[in-house]
Every structure is written in structure tokens, then in C-alpha cells.
């Protein structure tokens, strides 16, 4: 399928916070309470539309395994967006956010858009982390924030799409060099020969076409 842009996302956060469920809800629109724990990386993709432009999202869902993370730094590289997820019913997953953020910032490009997500909002009765705390953390670190439920699908769509919008805006503002694939953005195949929508100051798009 043709697309104007392709963005690469990663989903990070402690194990069990619902990363895989968020991905499944976004790509397949379903919640599977019984599923496999992630080993390494799992991959997903979906097409979305922003300002009438087709955008393909490639999503890498990672596992929290230290051993895996130690063999590759590459999954951060070339990501345009990241969903940093914690579980609102488990404070420790919130406490680890700083580490995750440091790790992400250190190994990704500086323009990567990071969306902070407090997941499992359907479990209000078991909440351990207040919404305001999430907001404050996001504010402090310059992140976008949302609470979601992979179970009820609440805000899931928005979380992924708003992240894409941010990235799109950055492209429009010329912040992202879309010709550098290390930024996690590719121009769609058919777009390669024409000027990309929006004022990209670096102008030259010849190298943007991939296959």
C-alpha cells in the first residue's frame, strides 16, 4: 500500500505494563487477556491518516529483558516516536520511568517524540499512580501524556496517532531531516520524486525513495 511517510515507533517500559496489549489493540483492535510474553522484539504495522496523508507506522514492541537490551542498541536507533508505558496500578513501573527515559534519550536521535502512557486506566480501583503524577512527570521532561486502557481501547488510537501528529508537525517545521533514515522517517515510494508535502528546508529528496 502506498503511503506518504513511514514512521518507526518503539514501545518501551517495564515488563507487564501492557506494551504488547497496546500494540495489539492498535493494530488488530482487540484485547487478548491470555497471550505470550514478549521475547526480544515483536513487530507491528498500521496505516493511519493525518491531514489527508497516508502514514505507515512501523512499531517495535520490545521486551524488558536486560539480556536482550545488552546485545543491541539498535532498536532505539532510527525511531521517530516512542511510547513510554507504565502501569497505573503499579508504582514501581512509574518509578522506573527515569531510567527508561535516560536510556531512550541516550540512544535515540534527539528529535524522537516520546509519549508517556499510563496504561490500565480501566483498573481505577487498583490505581497506585495518580493521573496528576503522570502529568507532572511528562511536564517536567517535555513529554506528551495520556492514560490508556489496552483492554477497553480507551485512548489507544489517540496515543499512537497523536504521536504521529507531533512527528508530522516536526517535519512540517523542518525539525526532522526526513532524508536521514536514522531519524525513523521514510518518504513513501511514490512520493520520492515529488516534493514532500510541507516546507522541508533541506529540500533534496532524491535519496528519500527506498525500494
Amino acid at each position, binding site marked *: 500500500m502506498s503511503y506518504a511517510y513511514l514512521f518507526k515507533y518503539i514501545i518501551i517500559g517495564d515488563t507487564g505494563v501492557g506494551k504488547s496489549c497496546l500494540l495489539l489493540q492498535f493494530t488488530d483492535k482487540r484485547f487478548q487477556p491470555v497471550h*505470550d510474553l514478549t*521475547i526480544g522484539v515483536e*513487530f507491528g504495522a498500521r496505516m493511519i491518516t493525518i491531514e489527508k496523508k497516508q502514514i505507515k507506522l512501523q512499531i517495535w514492541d520490545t521486551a524488558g529483558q*536486560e539480556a536482550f537490551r545488552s546485545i543491541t542498541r*539498535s532498536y532505539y536507533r*532510527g525511531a521517530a516516536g516512542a511510547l513510554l508505558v507504565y502501569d497505573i496500578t503499579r508504582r514501581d513501573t512509574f518509578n522506573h520511568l527515569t531510567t527508561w527515559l535516560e536510556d531512550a534519550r541516550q540512544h535515540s536521535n534527539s528529535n524522537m517524540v516520546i509519549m508517556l502512557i499510563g496504561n490500565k486506566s480501566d483498573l481505577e480501583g487498583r490505581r497506585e499512580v495518580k493521573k496528576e503524577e503522570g502529568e507532572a512527570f511528562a511536564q517536567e521532561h517535555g513529554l506528551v501524556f495520556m492514560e490508556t486502557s489496552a483492554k477497553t481501547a480507551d485512548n489507544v488510537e489517540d496515543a499512537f496517532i497523536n504521536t504521529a501528529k507531533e512527528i508530522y508537525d516536526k517535519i512540517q517545521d523542518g525539525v526532522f531531516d526526513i532524508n536521514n533514515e536514522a531519524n525513523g522517517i521514510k518518504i513513501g515510494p511514490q512520493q520520492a520524486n515529488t516534493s514532500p508535502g510541507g516546507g522541508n528546508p533541506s529540500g533534496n529528496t532524491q535519496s528519500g525513495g527506498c525500494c
Partner: protein
Amino acid sequence: MTTSAGILAFHTREAVKVKARVSAATLHRRSQLAPSDPPPAEWRRFSVDPQITTFEVLQNLLAKAFDIKGDFTIHYLAKDDEGKETYLGLLSDWDLDAAFLSSSMPCLNLLIDLKPFDEGLEGWDVITPADLVKPPLVSHVRNNAQQTGNFLMQQMERTLKSFSKVLRGPELSGYLNGVTERYRASKPPMSRREWQNFLDCEGRLIQPQELRRSVFRGGIEPSLRNIVWKHVLNVYPDDYTKDQRIQYLKRQSNEYYKLKATWTDMQKQGIVTEEMQYIMNMVSKDVLRTDRTHRFYAGSDDNKNVAKLYYILTTFALNHPSVSYCQGMSDLASPMLVTMNDEAQAYICFVALMQRLKPNFNINGLAITEKFAHLSLLLQHYDPEFFEYLKMNGADDLLYCYRWLLLELKREFSFDDALCMLEVLWSSLPPSPPEKELPLYEIRFGKDSAHPQSPRVLTRENPYTKVRRIRKQSSSSSLLCGTPKVHNGVIVNEPDNDESRRSSLNEITDDSQDYNPISDSIAHELRMDLENLNKTVLGNTKDATPQQFTFDNIIEEGNTLLENDGPWKQRKTCQGFCGTPDEQCELDFDSVEGETTQNHGSRRNLSCQSSLDRRRSGSSTSASTSASSHSDLVQEKADDSDYEDDHHAYRSKAPPTRSEGYCSEATLSSKEVSCQEDSRSVLDSGVLDFSRKSRSLLPPPGQLGGSNPFMMFLCLTLLLQHRDVIIRKRMDYNELAMHFDKMVRKHNVHKVLHETRIRFEEYLRLGWEASWEELV
């Protein structure tokens, strides 16, 4: 099978000779329908380029060659593992690949049948919706009722799966229907009777090699797994009698329950150390996400078996501080519990397995990094074109194979198929029984034990600081040290003072060196990580005395076993699982009485493979009559002189070579090192003999995949089975990774094992010692 160079030659061969003819039945029918038509000439000969000839192209070529207007089917002449010639259906690109790979030396022999499949192929399960309730048909397996039952059930499941795959997309169609049966192992699964042949009168296992060879070739009957797995997993020290095994298992089981009681009692008393808390949290989260769709673990979260898995893993983690708990372990322990259906015995088996797999979970990632590097070498060697394709797409990092490597492919097959794959894999390894008793703990966990050496304890407060420290070490060490060379996936490094380097590494804390982006190529990254392997790997290879690898035993004259066992007589199988070690061992020593098992109350209804199968088979035994329906195809044997030559060559295959004394790092000559540097030009020029070339480029069996070469070949097979689809659809990194993700639990175990055995055996025949030159 082909001559030894055949398989290896395949991917660099530019042309494959093809001979095709129309089947006698077709000719007969034609002449009846239109007697005036002259029958078409018997043979057509032509050559095709295996790299670019797709199934569709072949169809077109044949249609032209024989001037066929309507539908027709293609079969190719192949030899099964016993050397029997059979015409196999050629229905897809997969089949064509298999045909090129295994049956194209000296030429690919094709048979054309103008009948459409549904008329003439009673022996093949062609999937149509109506077929779903009809038991698929069986060929060339000598069944007893039990086997038929198992088999039919598996077939049914597979048929259903295949069918849903058909609905999902044509690219998966290669997995369906007739394929499954064709790739059945060369030998029926090990039966109780066969098992008995490996024991002496006191129940000692007298032929551990033979046992492994048999399991490697055909797997184990499900009802016998709980007994034989313990042997293949190296639970028992050598030469134990039946009585000794009973005593041993009793002792070990008691030991396990003590280890378990230590921490569960502490927990009851409200003493929960930080380490316990961390491990219990992790494990409890993960056992709820492990094989829950399998009947054994299904249902609500308080399933008793889920709890047992939790106890096993937590006990292991607390008593093995060097690895503690890591994700992935639950997947490895799960089959043990299902198969043993006994918590303590599952623990013992898991400990035995982890003896070998521990390094994979080391936080430094070195063992896995080495496996990535080796898989990459294999792929470059066996399919440079596909490797090139992956490289172009930045997918040569093979990250999507991580799960395969970590779980030894356990999740790539349906649960029951994985059991079969795993036992075959384990038995491909040389026996390595514990010297005395298998130690059930590294450091016994207790109230006052703190394990400062446990990496997880260090990471607990901040789970990723450790990772970052290791990253720092890797990049700094590659900055500090000279550049070691990677050769054959082994790190070749100038002698260096390890001690001084180690201490200097620990001092490096400068964050600026944490990340060292050389280039975008992930291959570079792997290489960097590889550089850090040198200490470990070099250390190992230097110290390693040549291990008594006996891979070649696996492939020698396997038929003898089959004959020994005579016809696979019908036998009653064990009813249910036994709960305690003694009872277990009664079974172990397969006496006639052992076959009727004591009733264990509630334990009995725990889902038990054999009883389930028996129930199923009760309703479907009638289908066993169709077992010979394959024969009309088998009869169609070519009577061509070329073929006879080929046959002859097959008989006089190269003598098996010993695999001890592998070419280790220490024996690498400078010649070979430089050979690595020009590997590309060597490959391209085709100057060297294949086997010489192969040998110089591939790590020897004792090193490949951390001494698990068969597993690496399994991974290679999975990659190669999908290469056509991937290339044809021009999948990019994400698409092909998703493609492999979707194949989780869906690979065809028989096809994969079949293809892997062929490649693996060819690899072993390369001759891994000085004698390799004789092959040239």
C-alpha cells in the same frame, strides 16, 4: 540423498538439469480418449536456473514442453531418509525449493500427471472445506492403533490450521496438505519396546549413543517421553541401574522440596528479601503468560499447573544466583512440567537443561551474540543471495530470530510439535551426563544468604543500570583494545593481558563512550559486540579438550534400529502419568506390569497425552486402512540409466567421518584466516571445491551455535523456507520481521526437521578434522 557437495553446491549452482515425462496412467487415458493422437515423447530434458525458477515458471515450461493445455500436476522423484524412492507432489515454491535442494543431483526427475489432484491422489490430503471432518490419510507409516490415534489428531489439527492459512493468504499455502505427511521422520517414534532394547537386564542404559541416534531420527512416543527425556537431558549419571535411578530420583525430589520449602516457609513467616520479592514478581507475571492456550495451563489464573511452574522457576532462580530469573525461562520449563507432570522431576529436568542453556541468559549477551554471528555465517554460506537481500534491507542483524535462539525454537512450533522438535534437538547433542549427581543448586538459598554475585541483585533497584554498564564496557573495550578479527565466528585476537583489561574496563565510566555510532549498519554493532566475545570464546576454545562429539553416529546406518525393532507391533501404552519417582521408575523399566499403572486419584485426570490420544484414537482407528494409498505414486519409478547412476552414487556415500578433534581456534592456520578475508572472491570464483570452501567458512560442530550446531541449522531452515516469499514480495525489514512473527507456533515440524537433517548431515560429512582433505 545427494553426494556430499550437492546440497552445498545448490545455492551457487547456476543450472539444474531437469528430465520430465508424462505418467503412464495419463498416456493410457489420453490414448483412450483420442486414440488417433500419438503419445507424446517420453522424456523432455532441459535446464533451469534454480535461483530464478519459480513454481509458476516451471509449470509454464512443462506446459510448453509437453504441449499441455489443461490442468496437470507435477511430482518429483525423491529419496526419503531410508533411501526409498518416491514421487512427491510439487505444488508450490516450497516444494520446488525442496526438490532443488534434495533431489536435483545429477538431475531433477519430474513426472507429469494430467489428472487434476482431486481425482488421482487418494493418498494426499488436499484441503477442501468438506475435508475438515474427514480424517486425512496416512502413508508409509507402519501404524499401531496408538500411533494412528496420535497422528490423526495431529493431522486434524494441522489440517485445520492449514485451512485457516489458506484463507489468510496464498503465500502460506506451501505449508498445507500433503507436505506434512511427506516429511514424516524416517523412523517411527521410539516405542516402549524399542526403548527396552537399550537397557541391560538391570535396567542400565547400555547404548546411550544408539538411544540418541534413534530419538534424533524419529522422536519419542508421547507416553514414553517422561522416561526417555531424563536420559536425553542428562539427568542421570552414567551406568545407573533401574534401582539406582529410583533412589536417585527420590533423593533429588526430596532435595527439590527442601529447596522450595526454604523460601516458601520464609514467605509464610513474612520474611521476604528484596531478591525474593523481585524474582517472585517477575515469575508470577510471566507464568501467567506462558503456554496458557495449552490445555495443561489453560483456564483461570489459579490453575495448579501454573502455580507449579511458578514454584519451579522461583526455586531455580533463588538457588542459581549467577542467572537468577530471566524471561524466556518459563517457556523452557513449561514443556518439562507438561511432560513429567511432576513438579520435582520437572525441576530436575529444567536444571539439567539449564546446565547447557545458562550462558544464553547471561546479562552480557555474549552467548546469544555469538549465535547471531554464526547464523549470519550460515546464511551467507548457504544462501548468499538471500543474505544480500537482507543486507540491502538492513535486516541482516537477524534480530527477529532472537526468540528462536533464546528458546531453541520452542515457540516456533505448536506445543506438541515443539516437544518432538526439542527431543530431536537434544539428542543431536553428545551425551553429557553429570559426573556424580546433578547439583540442584549453585548456592543454596537460605535466610542469611545474600548473593552479591547475582547480577539481578545489582540491577534490582534500577533494572537497566547494569545493561548500561555492560554497554559501556563493550564500547570502551573495543576502543581500548586492538581490533580482534572474527574468523569462522570465532574471535581471533592478539594475545593480551586479560587481567589488566578487565580492571581497566571497570574504571571506565565516561558516558560519552557509552554509545559509539560507527554507522547505521547493525552488522557493525554486532561485530563490536563480537569483539567483546574474545575473552570468553577464546578462553573456551583454548581450554577445551577436544570433546567427544559423536554427531556422525547420528547419521550412520540408522536403519539397523528399525530392523531390530521389527514390525512396530501394537502395544498397550502406559495409562496416565505416574506421580512419584518410584512409580515413575517402575515404568522406566518397562516391565509388562509397568504398563498398567496405579491409579493416582486426582493426578490421573491431569491432562495426559497418552490417555487423551487413546480416547481420540478410539474414534478414528478405521482410517489406518488407508496407509498404503500412497503406493500408486511410489510405483512410478523412472527406469532411466542416469537415474541408476545417481542411485549408485547414493549407495556408496562418503564414509562417515569422526567429528572429534575439531579445528579449534588454536589450530587455525594463517592460510585459513586469509581465506576468510577473500571469502567473497572465493565464493564468486568457485575455484575451490565446495567442501573445502565450506569448511573454511563455517565453524566446526563443536563451536557452531555454542556447540549446538543442529539448532543453528534449524534456524537456517526457517529462514530459507521463507526466503522466496520474502524476496518475491520484496518485504522490507518490518514486513519480513512481521512475517516471521506471524509464523509463531505455525511451522511444519516435519518439514523443518526433514530439511534440517539433510543440511545438517551434509555439514557433518564435511569432515571436521585433518581428514577433510580426503573429501576433496
